[in-house]
């Protein structure tokens, strides 16, 4: 997909609207998902997605293809989200109902209700992480970006990404260990 996206990007740079439309079709769901998980509601996510693509078209001439188009697009979305977050001092976190609704409507690998509940709990713990770790987890795990791609999006070194992920996993594991005795007791 990366090669196809680069070809479409090159055509879009030459003014091909059809190629730009194809790029939107390819990436709008991932960007919307990324921004939806971060922003906490559909309307803001839709607005941020529109802003992301608008800034993408504006910056298309300056795209040097040092990274993949997907990485570059996620970087723009990341900065759009940061700008939006600076204006909104108080961030909304996803409610449990939203995660449950998403799990109900989306096919998941979880077979039983216990696993689903564990997953919901895990996603809530992720939201409890500090902003840098949360961003790293979202990009690497939710958006399926590689370590290097995540590092490019965040503008940090890959080792920093590894460190943040390690910290996040340790936190999640500790939180999980804290809740398991309660479940066993229950």
């Amino acid at each position: 997909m990366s090669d196809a996206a680069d070809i479409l990007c090159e055509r879009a740079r030459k003014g091909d609207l059809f190629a730009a439309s194809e790029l939107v079709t390819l990436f709008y769901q991932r960007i919307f998902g990324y921004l939806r998980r971060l922003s906490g509601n559909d309307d803001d996510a839709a607005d941020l997605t529109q802003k992301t693509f608008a800034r993408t078209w504006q910056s298309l001439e300056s795209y040097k293809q040092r990274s993949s188009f997907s990485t570059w697009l996620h970087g723009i979305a990341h900065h759009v989200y940061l700008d939006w977050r600076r204006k909104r001092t108080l961030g909304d976190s996803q409610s449990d109902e939203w995660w449950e609704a998403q799990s109900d409507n989306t096919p998941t690998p979880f077979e039983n209700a216990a696993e689903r509940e564990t997953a919901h709990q895990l996603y809530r713990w992720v939201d409890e992480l500090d902003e840098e770790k949360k961003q790293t987890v979202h990009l690497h795990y939710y958006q399926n970006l590689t370590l290097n791609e995540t590092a490019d999006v965040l503008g940090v070194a890959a080792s920093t990404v590894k460190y943040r992920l390690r910290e996040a996993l340790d936190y999640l594991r500790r939180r999980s260990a804290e809740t398991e005795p309660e479940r066993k007791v229950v």
Partner: protein
Amino acid sequence: MNDTTIEKLLFHAPKPLVSPDLLKRLQADIALPNAKPTAKAREGQNPLRRWFPALGFAVFMLSCAIMVAVQASWSTKLKTENTTLRATTADLPKLREQHTALEQAQGEHDELVQLRKDNEELHSLQAEVAQLRGVPEQIQQLQLENRQLSAAASARIANAVSDAAIFDEAQARAERIQCVNNLKQVGLAFRIWAGDHRDKFPTSLVVMSNELSTPKILVCPSDSARQQQYASLRFGEFQDNMTSYVLTVQPDDESANPPCIIAKCPIHHNYLLSDGSVQQVNLKNPAYREVQKDGRWYLQAAEPGSTWNDAINPPAK
């Protein structure tokens, strides 16, 4: 949960549902810097502009077809003309022969015309020669006439010479008569002046200016030198020495005395006598001669056969 389970759960996090309108909105918001118009955008444009390339090509092809048709028409016409000309050129050798024969005939005709002209010219020349043959006789006649005319002319010239002599003679005679007339007027003036001065004659001509009409009569017409100098003068300017006549009057002469000479013309030998008459003396055969008595001059009858010199200087007795 171990790390593997956590990562597995995180990788399989549910994906948010996207609003179906979002894709349309995002596609509608695409604003590329070097955007080319899409098919939808092109629909809003002028259909003529949209179809201009096709129309231009169609017009070009149509014009090409018209050109081809026109050229085909010209080609057909040229072919037809070519066929006609080829059919015509089949008779070309014959036409050339006819043309050659015509040119020859034309040349002969021209030559004939030239010959006719030459013939006419020859005839005219012959006529001229015939005329010219009579010319020597005419020349002889003309020479004869010329001689006669020359003789007549020479005779006329001789006559003219004699006429000149006659004219000169007449002129001299007229001048002589005029001189006589002058002396008669002078004599009349003498007598009038004497009538006013107790019959005494004046010894000057200028004093008789009232009796003389003009000083012109005091100059003899044959005295050309005095005529040029004094004939036009008035009495105020005239003097006695300017007259042509010689005054022989004496201071005590009276009109009652026997007629003596009171004036004479030395050119014509005309003599004014105190009685007012004028006597003419022919020098070749003089009838009178001058005689001086008592200081006065008189005319006396001359002897027959004597000459003027004899009359002037008579032989001493």
